[in-house]
């Protein structure tokens, strides 16, 4: 294209559009580290049968309380079970409980938050007071009370009452954050336009408001998984969460582990490291996701 008289020859430098994952990795190195750990954990959980060198339930009375060695990288417990294999299999419990409870708790919270913001007025007032009531319970007290009163309800190998107990405390917290985001969206002109066009509340909520509060929802979701893993470990430690023989990190720390403090410190050190690392990874990733998607969001 030659120079046309009377026009300016301007070359634009088009900003390179990087793949979003790559862009995230470059701008949030800590979050990416967290994400890597999460991916590794998911891999370990999915392929646990191949990754773990032993059957997590295999009892070997000839080799109880063996210190870490090439044969048993993290030692064995008081039943001769391989600690490393139990930690690998324990990630299945931690992740499934963590993800499911966060998904259920945060989604319910988001729905309540959006609905409360959209309808406003009296509905909003009543819903918010109800959320305040739930917020008045410390998380673990609420979860313990739910587990305590509802007992177990195992379907597909997952204790759904435990999922509810861990997900319930998230509901008001997510509802509060999503509500305030949705309140801002509600005042946007395009919502008025949709309303004037005669769309139903359901359509306005799901097509116009929900897509605009996805960012806080996703941020809360990631942050919740770490907390859920921590809560599952605490409940299992107290004997009110996952029960034997299912391998769970919290369960590995409870009961007999305390009696073998001195003989077998590896029994308490490594499961705790696994819990901390998992929660740490989700917190790092959640923090970076917030900085990336919505830096002003206050959780």
């Amino acid at each position, binding site marked *: 294209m030659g120079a046309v008289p009377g026009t300016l020859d301007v070359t634009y430098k088009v900003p390179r559009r990087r793949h979003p994952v790559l862009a995230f990795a470059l701008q949030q190195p800590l979050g990416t580290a967290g994400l890597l750990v999460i991916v590794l954990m998911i891999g370990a959980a999915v392929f646990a049968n191949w990754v773990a060198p032993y059957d997590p339930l295999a009892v070997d009375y000839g080799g109880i309380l063996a210190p870490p060695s090439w044969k048993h990288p993290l030692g064995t417990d008081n039943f001769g079970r391989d600690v490393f294999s139990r930690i690998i299999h324990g990630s299945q419990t931690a992740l499934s409980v963590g993800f499911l409870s966060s998904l259920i708790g945060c989604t319910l919270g988001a729905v309540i938050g959006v609905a409360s913001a959209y309808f406003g007025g009296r509905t909003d007032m009543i819903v918010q007071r109800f959320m305040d009531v739930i917020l008045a319970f410390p998380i673990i007290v609420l979860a313990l009370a739910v587990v305590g009163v509802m007992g177990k309800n195992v379907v597909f190998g997952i204790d759904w009452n435990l999922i509810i107990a861990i997900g319930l405390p998230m509901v008001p917290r997510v509802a509060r954050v999503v509500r305030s985001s949705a309140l801002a969206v509600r005042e946007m002109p395009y919502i008025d336009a949709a309303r004037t066009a005669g769309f139903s509340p359901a359509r306005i909520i799901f097509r116009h408001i929900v897509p605009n509060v996805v960012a806080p929802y996703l941020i809360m979701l990631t942050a919740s998984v770490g907390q859920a893993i921590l809560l599952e470990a605490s409940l299992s*430690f107290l004997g009110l969460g996952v029960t034997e023989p299912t391998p769970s990190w919290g369960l590995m720390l409870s009961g007999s582990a305390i009696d073998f403090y001195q003989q077998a410190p590896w029994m308490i050190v490594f499961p705790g490291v696994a819990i901390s690392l998992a929660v740490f990874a989700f917190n790092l990733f959640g923090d970076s996701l917030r900085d990336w998607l919505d830096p002003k969001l206050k959780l």
Partner: protein
Amino acid sequence: MLRYIAQRLLLMIPTLFGVALLVFVMLRVMGGDPVETMMRGGGGNVSQAVIEQERVRLGLDRPLYVQFGKWLGGMVTGDFGVSMWTGKPVSQEIASRLQLSLQVAVMATVLAILISIPLGTLSALYKDTWIDHVVRVISIAGLAVPSFWLGMIIILVLLSYFHWHPPIMFTPFFENPRENLAQLIWPALAVGYRYSAVATRMMRSTLLEVLQEDYIRTARAKGVYERLVVIRHALSNAMLPVVTVIGLEFAFLIGGLVVTEQVFNLNGIGKLFVQAISRSDLTMVQALVLLVAAFFIVVNFVIDLMYAWLDPRIRYG
């Protein structure tokens, strides 16, 4: 101001009523049968007639609204009922353990304040230097490490290097303060780490925000010593959210204690709560949950009042 206080106090009543109702419904409608747990839990063979008799004795045969009314009525007069497990008054059981849990909570709070304010301030003042990085890693880790596991590690270290064992008997503060503090400092540290991590993060982020304000630039431009700028202008304005976090975490500390008390073999509220749940001791669970929730609501109220005291710009009318 007085009007505001009165208003807030009145508003607490419906919230507390809601909490009481929720707890009651949860325990009585969905919960297990305490009599079954007590009499048949150990595999004992007890006839149905005995069970029915026991249910009548505990008032569990009455309609739910009557039970709820009785419970509420009792609480108004300060009667929290009788433990379904031990038969002793609930208030007596709780009172004997509250002192211990409260002391650990207060000690953890003091630790958190002593750790978080200087660390958070340093981290903000030396942003993006190695000091900041170290503080941030320590505080993010504090959110990830389970307090009960930290407690176990503390015991492990003390045991291996100092041959210290968690004592079986609890020494009250007024009997032997030294002994008492030596005993409770470790659980306080275990729950206090997470606590101070939360507060440190808040201190850092609010101080960073405040340091961007115009009045800080003005103060510096006037030639005020940097030390004075930080202490008088920045810190005093950054304290509000930190106070909130410290207060809220204090109210929620009882949650951390539930698990940590097991590790240190402390006979406090947390241990009582776990026991009451596994025994289906409904009256005890109800009273404890309500106590904790009421505590949270009151602390929230106190935080709001402290706002006005810390920041004269806030006026409640």
